[in-house]
């Protein structure tokens, strides 16, 4: 602490400490603790809050698992189904994203000359100046049954009848993959750029094929970047709202849509809180599991 003050001077040090403490306590810890507490409270009309009925209860978590008492099913198949599907799709989207971004990031970091790489980065960033909702609607127009893609495919005679991209959730997968592409590319790019190019040449000189060089040298080196990108993309995809609302098929529900409904339409904040806590904890557990599996430490991800 003392050396921190000495190094940065009293003014900057005080600013840093106040800013960080404010950020942590007021913007992260207090709201989340409030949500956590809320999720264990019954949904009461405002007058009864703080009264004798306002006790801690597991009723909302029970609702997620067993459904409402009036329902005849043993379990809440609908909500659990949506939840599992959301996590499963988020995993799938993360994998697609990784496969899609890895070659681009590698090209930018190791093959392209600096000017081409800069141009590529700019052309990746600029589309993200357009807001998410607008981008999703644009994709919807592209993928609609009378949309650009169908018209092209029909016009060139590649298909006989239009494909319903939205009903098959192809539009949703595409939209979700595209939505967080930068959060995958940049960690990958950072990690790959720090790889000594001589290592690639050495591997090649020793007779290694391109695939094996990536498998044995590049991917192990970029492991932390891959983990970091995947973590972010997975978390954000699982928590996305705008894209699923616009692009999902009428039969597909995203878990965040349920949360949104509990908060807004059904006016049941505590259940909404319980559902978001569920999504958060399962996402965190999943990420920790992956890190354990791939032997990446949290410190490496941040690097």
């Amino acid at each position, binding site marked *: 602490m003392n050396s921190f003050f000495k190094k940065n001077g009293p003014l900057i040090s005080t600013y840093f400490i106040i800013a960080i403490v404010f950020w942590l306590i007021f913007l992260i810890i207090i709201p989340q603790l409030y949500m956590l507490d809320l999720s264990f409270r019954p949904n009461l009309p405002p007058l009864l809050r703080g009264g004798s009925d306002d006790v801690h209860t597991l009723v909302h978590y029970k609702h997620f698992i067993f459904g409402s008492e009036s329902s005849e099913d043993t379990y809440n198949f609908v909500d659990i189904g949506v939840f599992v599907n959301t996590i499963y799709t988020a995993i799938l989207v993360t994998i697609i994203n990784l496969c899609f971004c890895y070659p681009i990031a590698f090209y930018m970091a190791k093959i392209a000359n600096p000017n081409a790489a800069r141009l590529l980065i700019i052309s990746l960033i600029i589309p993200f100046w357009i807001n998410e909702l607008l981008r999703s609607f644009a994709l919807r127009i592209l993928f609609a049954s009378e949309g650009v893609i169908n018209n092209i495919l029909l016009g060139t005679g590649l298909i006989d009848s239009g494909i319903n991209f939205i009903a098959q959730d192809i539009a949703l997968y595409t939209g979700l993959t595209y939505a967080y592409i930068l959060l995958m590319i940049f960690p990958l790019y950072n990690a790959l750029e720090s790889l*000594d190019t*001589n*290592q690639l*040449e*050495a*591997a*090649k*000189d*020793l*007779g*290694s*094929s391109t695939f*094996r060089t990536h498998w*044995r*040298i590049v991917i*192990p*080196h970029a492991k932390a970047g891959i983990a970091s990108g995947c973590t972010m993309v997975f978390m954000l995809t699982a928590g996305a709202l705008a894209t699923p609302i616009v692009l999902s098929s009428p039969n597909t529900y995203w878990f965040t849509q349920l949360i949104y409904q509990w908060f807004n339409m059904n006016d049941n904040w505590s259940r909404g809180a319980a559902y978001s806590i569920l999504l958060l904890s399962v996402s965190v557990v999943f990420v920790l599991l992956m890190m354990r599996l791939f032997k990446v430490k949290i410190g490496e991800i941040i690097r």
Partner: protein
Amino acid sequence: MSADVELQNISVTFGSFFAAKNVSVKIEKGEFFSFLGPSGCGKTTLLRAISGFLDPSEGKVLIGGQDMAGIGPNKRPTSLIFQNLALFPLMSVSDNIVFSLEVRGVSKNKRKKRADELLELIALSGQGEKKVHELSGGQRQRVAIARALAIEPEVLLLDEPLSALDLKLRQKMRTELRAIQKRVGITFIYITHDQGEALTMSDRVAVMNEGELEQVGLCDDVYNLPNTPFVATFVGENNPFYAKVLSVEKDLVKVETQGYTFLATTGKINKQKNYSFSKGDEVLMFIRPESIFIKNENTTLDNMFTAKVNTVEFEGNLKNIYLKINSGMNVRFSVPNAVDTNELMNNKEVKLTFSSKKAIVLPKGALAVD
């Protein structure tokens, strides 16, 4: 197995810039051959052309008589040791060493056997499980050599691999490299800007400047009989004198410079042929610092001049004495440390002498930047 390497009229251009210009040289089987030159002279470009990372704009690379055009670095019988070694930091020492066998699908048992063999060759037995960063600089060097030797290449290419080491280790590694080369018997092609390295290890050296070969020859020939002013000043230390030819007699030239008349030996164009000079030619005469002596009763050679002491510099085994002739031109000579130099005070006039056999006359040309 070992192979010879032949470069035929190799040129490498980047835009209008010639990184290598019409280079032809034949490197014999089992030879330790060095390319020596200042940074940016094109030596690394040549090495990359031999290893296959770069296609020459013109000319051919032949290895073992076979044209290498269109053959990638992973298919050539060469192994390259990088300047920064480029060991794989996430693999164990053993995995590093036998990586080339792994990519060829050699079984685990055979790989282990070969790794142990090579670890023994580089005196690191039992340390195969370590990570690369746990080794010292010299040990890493040896691992890089072992890794390059694992597939038994016919030619080993080394790109200044010793330049990152400190002086003592570098000297030790020179001896070791030479010993390893003798043991495995394959062709070594070594790139360096350090003339000490090139001269101590190599059978032959090629001195390069601005993309061109200046001289190819045995180490002592390059040192004693430089073909060009660049070689004379780049390899070792030298005193260049701008001079005018007075007369020529067989391979002795009488020149006039700084108001003195000196007798010197005619330089060689190549191994067979001398330069020919005639009266009035503007030339350069070179005399090395260790060939100039203080004149006294015991030492009097056929050339003499007087100069004023400027500074005496202590260099450990040697002392370098810097003098001025006619208060203009700088001359330097060196004496062993044991010689008493107390009398060589500032501005003291000294009589110096050198032999016509040690002075070389060459046509005027570019000197190495000093």
